[in-house]
């Protein structure tokens, strides 16, 4: 009996350990409660896997389609939804990006803007103000020294790390869905590096606000964006204040006067005199209130009026940024002197970088969308407003439609949007559940959806890197190409974010650049991006140009009907003058940086096989590299078929 208990206990213990362990072990869930209806839509398991990967990753890696078929698309999707994959090698790559681990306050202290550095240097007497910009080199050197001595780095370096990191995550993260959703929500709640006031805060915005909430509850995401410095600056809410009678300085009790000083000081930024003077006089600013309804929640036809916008702006007055930055900041000194407890007792709310400043808040009564906010609601009424907006029918439809446009097609069926919107309402804006409803619907798998989307330049570039297993050492080179193709990520100026439709991405200049990108990438001419085409095919040399075309088309475009692409490209490869042309070309072309082909081996084989192959191999022999193969792969990446997903 005793023994049995002991065994039993041991077993239970073991079970517990196993359960606990397995909860932490990354990997695929045992029994996802899903069965995707792709068979009814007429898709094979391979086609279904390829479609799924085209929607929820930045592009399939070689062999990934087969892998998803093996695991089962439902299990794969569930693991992606729960962000369960390990990312050790990615994390190792990201390790060197030290600026991306800093808090916003640390960023402000260590990566000041050019203008801030200049003012600091002038104030510290290091740079003579009369020499500024007159003798460019001398004053630049002085500034550089000043920055080095004070441990300051240029803001551009921060943004560079940030952009590099994004490209590496998109290319190599095993939790692809999380990364795709992060891009989706960033674009939905767009902020822009172009706006100088908010650019410093964008890395932390994506890291702390968007990514952790990308697969959570919509309401949490909305609130987090509303309180983030990046958004508060981007849409100017930090500067919005109410016009209370009791906000006049003068006949206030002394204790209150202290806080009022703060209200008039620019509480949040390193002193920037010209701007500060100009902004002091501002009152209500409706920018955020308008866009939170038009772009973030209800949508432009969401049934709100200008009156609602103004009232919502009043509700959100006083939502601002906690002072940060080490230099000449009266607000921060005052804050530190007061301490959090005192702040709280006076109605301030301080959470991380967010500060609710009751002295800038409009205390009057407001009505938004028919909902009355009684006078004196303070910080809480703002939270109530946003929560209310997050749960509107119009919001459920607007967000569902945007998701369907991103993941299904440029013109998703209304039936699908309605299903998703129902889930959005019933499941309290649970983004995962909305995605499950979408993938579980026949519309997701319909012929009208498969390959209907046009890849954005970012998707094209990252997808190619993934498809070719390219090694990216200089991600910024890819950023430059993506910019050239028309998607300067993080620099889109308008709060709408990039339009998500094919017509936007495809125009004459951009299209030629897509083709050029394919050629440049495949021939190893993008510095810091290594491509090994031979390794992609396990170092099996294709037997002919034709074979190369077939093999690599299948590798790069898995699960697609390729007859047309192959048929169109074949004449090029069989051009009788090809040898001549390539000879001529190779004489002028410096060797591409690719794995050298085994010339001797190929020449031997060349003697044994047919004429076409002879051509192909002779080409390689004469060029000493796989330039023909690179050209074939480049053309595949630039082909119309590859522009779609």
């Amino acid at each position, binding site marked *: 009996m005793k023994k049995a208990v002991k065994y039993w206990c041991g077993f239970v213990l073991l079970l517990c350990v196993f359960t606990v362990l397995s909860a932490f072990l990354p990997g695929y869930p045992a029994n996802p409660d899903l069965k995707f209806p792709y068979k009814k839509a007429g898709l094979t398991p391979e086609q279904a896997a390829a479609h799924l990967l085209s929607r929820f990753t930045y592009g399939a890696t070689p062999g990934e389609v087969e892998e998803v078929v093996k695991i089962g698309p439902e299990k794969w999707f569930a693991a992606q939804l729960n962000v369960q994959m390990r990312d050790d090698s990615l994390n190792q790559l990201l390790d060197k990006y030290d600026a991306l681990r800093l808090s916003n306050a640390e960023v402000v202290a260590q990566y000041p803007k050019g203008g801030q550095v200049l003012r600091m240097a002038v104030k510290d007497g290091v740079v003579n103000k009369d020499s500024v910009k007159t003798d460019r080199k001398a004053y630049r050197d002085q500034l550089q020294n000043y920055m080095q001595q004070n441990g300051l780095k240029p803001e551009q370096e921060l943004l560079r790390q940030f952009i590099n990191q994004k490209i590496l995550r998109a290319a190599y993260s095993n939790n692809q869905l999380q990364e795709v959703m992060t891009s989706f929500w960033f674009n939905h709640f767009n902020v822009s590096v172009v706006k100088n006031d908010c650019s410093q805060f964008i890395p932390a915005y994506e890291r702390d606000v968007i990514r952790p909430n990308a697969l959570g509850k919509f309401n949490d995401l909305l609130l987090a964006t509303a309180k983030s410095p990046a958004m508060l600056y981007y*849409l100017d809410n930090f500067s919005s204040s109410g016009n209370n009678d009791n906000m006049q300085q003068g006949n206030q009790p002394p204790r209150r006067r202290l806080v009022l000083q703060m209200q008039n000081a620019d509480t949040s930024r390193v002193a920037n005199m*010209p701007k500060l*003077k100009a902004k002091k006089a501002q009152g209500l600013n409706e920018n955020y209130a308008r866009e939170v309804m038009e772009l973030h929640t209800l949508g432009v036809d969401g049934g709100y009026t200008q009156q609602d916008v103004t009232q919502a702006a009043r509700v959100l007055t006083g939502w601002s940024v906690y002072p940060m930055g080490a230099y000449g900041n009266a607000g921060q000194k005052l804050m530190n002197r007061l301490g959090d407890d005192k702040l709280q007792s006076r109605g301030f709310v301080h959470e991380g970088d967010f500060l609710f400043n009751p002295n800038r808040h409009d205390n009057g009564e407001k009505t938004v969308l028919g909902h009355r906010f009684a006078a004196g609601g303070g910080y809480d009424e703002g939270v109530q407003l946003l929560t209310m907006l997050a749960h509107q029918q119009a919001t459920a439809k607007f967000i569902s439609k945007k998701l369907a446009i991103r993941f299904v097609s440029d013109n998703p069926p209304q039936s699908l949007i309605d299903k998703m919107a129902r889930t959005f309402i019933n499941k309290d804006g649970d983004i995962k559940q909305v995605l499950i409803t979408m993938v579980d619907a026949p519309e997701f798998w319909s012929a009208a959806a498969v390959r209907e989307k046009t890849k954005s330049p970012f998707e094209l570039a990252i997808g190619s890197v993934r498809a070719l297993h390219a090694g990216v050492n200089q991600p910024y080179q890819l950023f430059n190409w993506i910019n050239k193709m028309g998607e*300067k990520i993080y620099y889109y100026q*308008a709060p709408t974010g990039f339009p998500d439709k094919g017509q936007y991405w*495809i125009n004459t200049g951009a299209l*030629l650049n897509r*083709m050029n990108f394919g050629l440049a990438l495949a021939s190893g001419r993008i510095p810091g991006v290594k491509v090994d085409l031979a390794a992609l095919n396990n170092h099996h040399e294709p037997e002919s140009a034709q074979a190369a075309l077939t093999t690599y088309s299948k590798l790069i475009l898995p699960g697609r009907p390729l007859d047309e692409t192959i048929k169109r490209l074949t004449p*090029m490869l069989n051009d009788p003058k090809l040898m001549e042309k390539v000879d001529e070309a190779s004489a002028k072309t410096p060797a591409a940086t690719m794995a050298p082909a085994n010339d001797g081996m190929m020449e031997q084989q060349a003697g044994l096989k047919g004429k076409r192959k002879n051509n192909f191999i002779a080409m390689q022999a004469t060029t000493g590299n796989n330039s023909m193969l690179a050209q074939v792969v480049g053309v595949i990446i630039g082909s119309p078929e590859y522009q779609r997903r």
Partner: protein
Amino acid sequence: MVSRRGFLKSGGLALLGVGLLGGIPGFLAEAAASEKILSPYKKKKTLVCIFQRGAMDGLMAVTPFTDDYLKAARPNLFMSAARSGAGNPLIDLDGRFGLHPAMKAFEPMFREKRLGIVHGIGSPNNTRSHFDAQDYMESGTPFNKGTSSGWLNRAVGLLGHDALTPFTAVSMTSAMPRSFYGDNPSVAISNLQDFAIQMRGNPTGANMAAKSFEDLYDQTASGLLKQTGKESFEAMKMLQKTDIKNYAPANGAVYPNSALGNSLKQIAQLIKMDVGLEVAFAESNGWDTHFNQGTENGIFARNVADLSNSMMALWTDLGTYQDDVTVMTMTEFGRTVHQNGTGGTDHGRASCNFILGNDVNGGLVYGDVKPLAIENLEDGRDLAVTTDFRSVFSAVADKHLEINNDHILFPDWKGDRVNVMRG
């Protein structure tokens, strides 16, 4: 638009079928089939817009030099129109306003009444943030952030015909400017030489690849990719006919070796190639002169020299095309009346702009600039905005491009136009 394109296309093919237009690119054949234009080779009017990013000090560019308040407010920056000693004085335009001497290239144009100046121009929204002010000016809706399109993109939609060539609207910038955001076809390109299939050092390979691509796009089932692919290759071939790289400006025009000079040179090339350019956009940077902006020499002088010399090089280069072109500058706001503590000026309100062209009712400084006494200043510090930028932009768009639908061009605006244009 797709169906319209389809219609045009069939018309174009019919023409090709009877051999009338064999050998010319398809989009010109389409143009020939359109009833709205007379001939594919009819010259089009072109509006060239230059955005001076950073906010130009309008009071230094075109100085009300008789204003003693200004003189007092700018002890180190004020320039005089009176010749005294070694330096060059302001160029006296009308007894009240003086043009910065570094812009002497503009003087003949002003005297010939082909250059107009609007002073006190700006936005009704009093933001002094570069970003917000540029955003509002470029979207054309000074109180609405969420406007998804830019005013120049809407202008393309109001030209009265479909964009007939890939070059209808071209921005000589690496990224699409806010002014060009929107659904109407437009292209952003910083270098026309990029309009080609390129394999560095391997022209044969590039040619082969181009042929493969053209074939693939011609056969693709996707309408969008097929149509755009076709236009891309036609555009490419159009540009290949001229030696873009070794372009020699006409009439002895010399472009400054600057970003703006380079952009305007390429715009001139496109205009002279008759490829259907109607709206062009270029940028000029470095106007945010908080520090040591200088007077006769210095940053500001270099900037205005570059601006005026680039514009005049374009003008000279255009030669017989001058009648078809109007050039208009814009900047997000002006700068403080008072100089600051670092030899510069801070963010203000109104600035001035320049409009150059044979359609311009020039030789005048338009606008309402009151004496710069404190009671006349906006917020007690800045040159007041007395002319809404839209009242000038809409006049230029109407008279030069025959775009007169202000409801679409500037949806929230109900003001009167300033008639800076003839007719």
